[in-house]
């Protein structure tokens, strides 16, 4: 845990020096919402459509963060430096997943209010607590799977291609569960209800399964 905190602190410091990841994710999300606004040709959306738009926007913006997650390690020798240290290698999985999770939270802190302001018909206030729960579970899944995919992709020459090609199919179940869980929350007729428990359980199980899988294989991904 201590090593993971050392790595996380370094990653956050690097992001605060360069601002290469989070601003790009936020900008991408805002532009995507503008595109949806014109493409759907509606002033306001709600329910399942709104949940789908929000989920897809977050997912695509997350891909930018996923693609950049290990770039500094690959290009500046961070992998070698880490592998030379007498530490548990799964610390890197934990640190990178935590960094990606924080980037996603940072993205949503800006993107969700913007979504409520420019696209969502019903008020964002009443469903917000339930929506936060759904997004936290979705972010956990995105962070774990994103870290796994990024660790694979960065070893290849076509990492910008491999990331989405590998990540998006793996994230489809999480995408469906997130959208289904958020849909009723954003419905005009049912603005303040709790998210459907079934989809939350599916999302949580999905996160757990992939967290265990990532823990099991991550060491091998760092091996030569």
């Amino acid at each position, binding site marked *: 845990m201590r*090593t993971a905190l050392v790595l996380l602190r*370094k990653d956050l410091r*690097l992001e605060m*020096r360069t601002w290469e990841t989070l601003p790009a994710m936020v900008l991408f999300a805002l532009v995507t919402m503008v595109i949806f606004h014109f493409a759907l040709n509606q002033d306001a959306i709600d329910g399942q459509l709104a949940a789908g738009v929000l989920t897809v926007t977050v997912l695509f913006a997350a891909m930018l963060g996923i693609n950049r997650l290990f770039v500094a390690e690959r290009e*500046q*020798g*961070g992998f070698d430096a880490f592998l*030379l*240290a*007498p530490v548990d290698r799964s610390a890197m999985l934990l640190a990178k997943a935590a960094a990606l999770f924080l980037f996603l939270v940072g993205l949503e802190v800006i993107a969700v209010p913007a979504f409520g302001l420019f696209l969502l018909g019903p008020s964002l206030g009443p469903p917000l607590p339930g929506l936060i729960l759904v997004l936290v579970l979705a972010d956990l899944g995105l962070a774990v799977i994103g870290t796994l995919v990024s660790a694979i992709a960065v070893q290849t020459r076509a990492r910008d291609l491999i990331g989405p090609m590998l990540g998006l199919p793996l994230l489809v179940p999480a995408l469906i569960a997130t959208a289904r869980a958020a849909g009723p929350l954003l419905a005009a007729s049912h603005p303040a209800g709790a998210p459907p428990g079934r989809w939350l359980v599916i999302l949580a199980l999905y996160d757990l399964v992939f967290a265990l899988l990532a823990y099991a294989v991550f060491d091998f991904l760092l091996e030569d």
Partner: protein
Amino acid sequence: MSVVAQPPAIELRGLARYFGERTALRDVSVSLPAGATLAVLGRNGAGKSTLLRILASLLRPHAGDVVVFGEPLPRRGFAVRGRLGLLSHEPLLYRELTGRENLEYHARLHRVALDRVQEVLVAVGMERRAGDPVRLLSRGMVQRLAVARAVLHAPALLLLDEPRANLDPAASALVEPLIGRASGCTRVLTSHDPAAALAEADLVLALKDGRPAFVGEPAQFTAAALAKLYA
């Protein structure tokens, strides 16, 4: 220094490593006692850096045995990682972090007291520029920081790939106590300056196309053999 009496720090037996169909190393066998220096010579692409990466447990051998401090690699790599320092072509420093931040990061990874960071910064003469991002430093300064990084945790084995690259004579003299013979470490070093490497070595491994062309003491490595190696 006697190279006979001490137990081997490094033992290679029939080491081979391939990259696809290309042979990077083949049939490499050498035994290096603790505290001794092995100079690895050869033309570009002869397999010198590959050998260092295998010894650092960053690459897996495809055949043969690699034993470092009595621990077989890569299976027991975790047992030797904290005991070796690698100075490679890449400085293994983050460009956007300062020299001090980089060294503190490595100190935390190696569980070394942060006081040691200032100690090595002074030793490489970088204490005044330690607050500058690495991207703003000259290559020589980055190399000095890389030396500081490699010796930060006081390793027993130094793997030095062109350790004096980009260093002027003054800087080279400055890092000598850290990575030279005076460090007391077991050393494996590569160099594009064979004369300098031979002067430092207790044992020479000359590689040609990944295969050993010569293994023995420097005195036995003739000028003709050297000329043939680089022909």
